């Protein structure tokens, strides 16, 4: 007998009482959606910028290797997307469009099409996600409603810069992934 069969038949052999699958009610949030979202991102050690603030920041900073896949800032790329993700090791900045953001925790949803290469938001030293204010939802429940039955091969909720607290519980931003997250609300 294959292990598959062994496991499945072991389960079949157990008398299990039926248990109904509950429906999930609509849960919302108490506060205003945009303000809550901004608070969440700040709490996650990210920043929220307006388009103008972002543009000022970008001119003042120096990012030799930059990839922008945002439709709002399509001409900013200094390099094109390579075939091999390893070549992105020294990527300074990635600018991506997020599909929607979740107010209760600041999580922003991105899929393969938004990323180009899956490694982009992780390997970039700094990450900017551009989000339309219209695309903010209250909780993860509305988030998954938005995702629906989408069939992207990969999707990710990103909520802040990479961080760790593994040394004596002191929070350090910039573990393996992006050292900063800026969310541009348009």
């Amino acid at each position, binding site marked *: 007998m294959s*292990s598959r069969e062994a496991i*499945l038949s072991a389960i079949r052999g157990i008398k299990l009482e039926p248990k109904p699958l509950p429906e999930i009610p609509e849960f919302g949030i108490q506060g205003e959606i945009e303000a809550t979202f901004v608070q969440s991102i700040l709490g996650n050690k990210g920043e929220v910028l307006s388009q103008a603030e972002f543009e000022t920041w970008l001119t003042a900073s120096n990012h030799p290797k930059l990839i922008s896949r945002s439709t709002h800032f399509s001409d900013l790329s200094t390099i094109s997307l390579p075939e091999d*993700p*390893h070549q992105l090791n020294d990527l300074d900045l990635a600018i991506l469009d997020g599909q929607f953001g979740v107010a209760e*925790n600041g999580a922003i949803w991105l899929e393969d099409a938004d990323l180009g290469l899956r490694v982009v938001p992780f390997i970039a030293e700094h990450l900017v996600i551009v989000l339309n204010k219209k695309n903010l939802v209250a909780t993860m429940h509305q988030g998954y409603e938005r995702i629906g039955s989408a069939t992207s091969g990969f*999707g990710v909720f990103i909520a802040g*810069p990479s961080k760790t607290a593994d040394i004596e519980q002191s929070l350090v931003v910039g*573990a*393996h992934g992006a050292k900063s997250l800026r969310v541009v609300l348009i």
Partner: protein
Amino acid sequence: MSHPENASEFLKDQAQAKWHDETLWFVRDKRDRISKTIPEWEDLRNLASQIKDNVLANLGPYLEQFEENAKKNGVQIHWAKDGEEHNRIVLDILKRHDCQAIVKSKSILTEECHLNPFLEKNGIDVVDTDLGERIVQLLHQPPSHIVLPAIHLKKGEISELFHEKLHTEKGNEDPAYLTQAARLHLREKFLGAKVALTGVNFGIAETGEFVVCTNEGNADMGVHLADVHVACMGIEKILPRRKDLGIFLRLLARSATGQPVTNYNSHFRSPAPGRELHIILVDNGRTAQLAREKFKNSLKCIRCGACMNTCPIYRRSGGFSYGSTVPGPIGSILSPGLDMKKHSTLPFASTLCGSCSDVCPVKINIHEQLYEWRQEITKAHGELGKGLSMWIAAGIFKSPLAYKISGSLMRKALKTLPDSLIYHPMNAWGKSRDLPEAPKESFQQWYQKNRS
């Protein structure tokens, strides 16, 4: 060594023990506070618990559905009855890709299967990439906590370790500095690994996708650079619907660390073009636990670690005192199912205070299961050896209430035990505690005199 011996050892360094308790209490407190910002918190716990009940009641069909969908998505599915088979499957995949070095993100399951030593024996260089896990790996230790693997270490110890292994400045204990050093060290490993291994937080039956949650981004760094992604998944990790993730992701990070969500919540559905994606579905004692009516609920666990942070025993005895892959309250109800003899003292490492059950996001009745395991363990006295039954009996007979009062009742129950044990003069109660003063008369005598 038994839990009490390990705990006494841990408590010898009083300052360290106090620090450990306070650090974990801080996490517990953060969890308490954030859970109270969600008015529907208890509803979410109820829903999560009901969804997991439904999963366990239909585990077979859900697994088949998951497999079918994952295959359609281009994922290769493997099944492993136990840890050994799981490890062999991993090694086969590595061999097929001629891979000598892998990166691995946090997976309690691979700890449970003892994958690292197995691969190392077979000449594979395994690098754990979660910072805490990397730290304990460099020290040749197992994680002491399922979410905070290096919580038993002070920054001085980590600084020394990094000085030796990563050549950081001697004496520099700044967590930011040490983290940056680890980032550079691990970046190289990420870039060099052909195969990346991850655990699985949730597998979705209706879509065949699975979700991995990290704060550091180490799982993603590994898998998106590697040619092959191997995901190791306990068969109980299934959720029926994609939308169930809404419930579980709201609960997981808040329960684990008191943050609103983990930073990276990656949903893997199909491999990137030209890459391979494998899922290994592992039993390793889970179907046996499912068959134990009183204990099957332990399989609802989502490994958030909240029961450890809240446990007054865990906080004061440390993860290693349990001597099991999963420590703390949940470990104490899972481990006896795997090896009752080895873990026989764990269900007794509790006051049955119930804090674990109240904190658990999927409402596992942990402390009631601890109570039930005690009943099972005493039934197996014969097999477990005299030492254990003597130890338990000593507990009963040496506490003042029993010692003085209920002797006859309990002696009848345990008539096999020698009187010398029952009346042993070295009473563990009295080592650091006074006995209550004996009153002139009992209440019964008073009542007889004054009221009847």
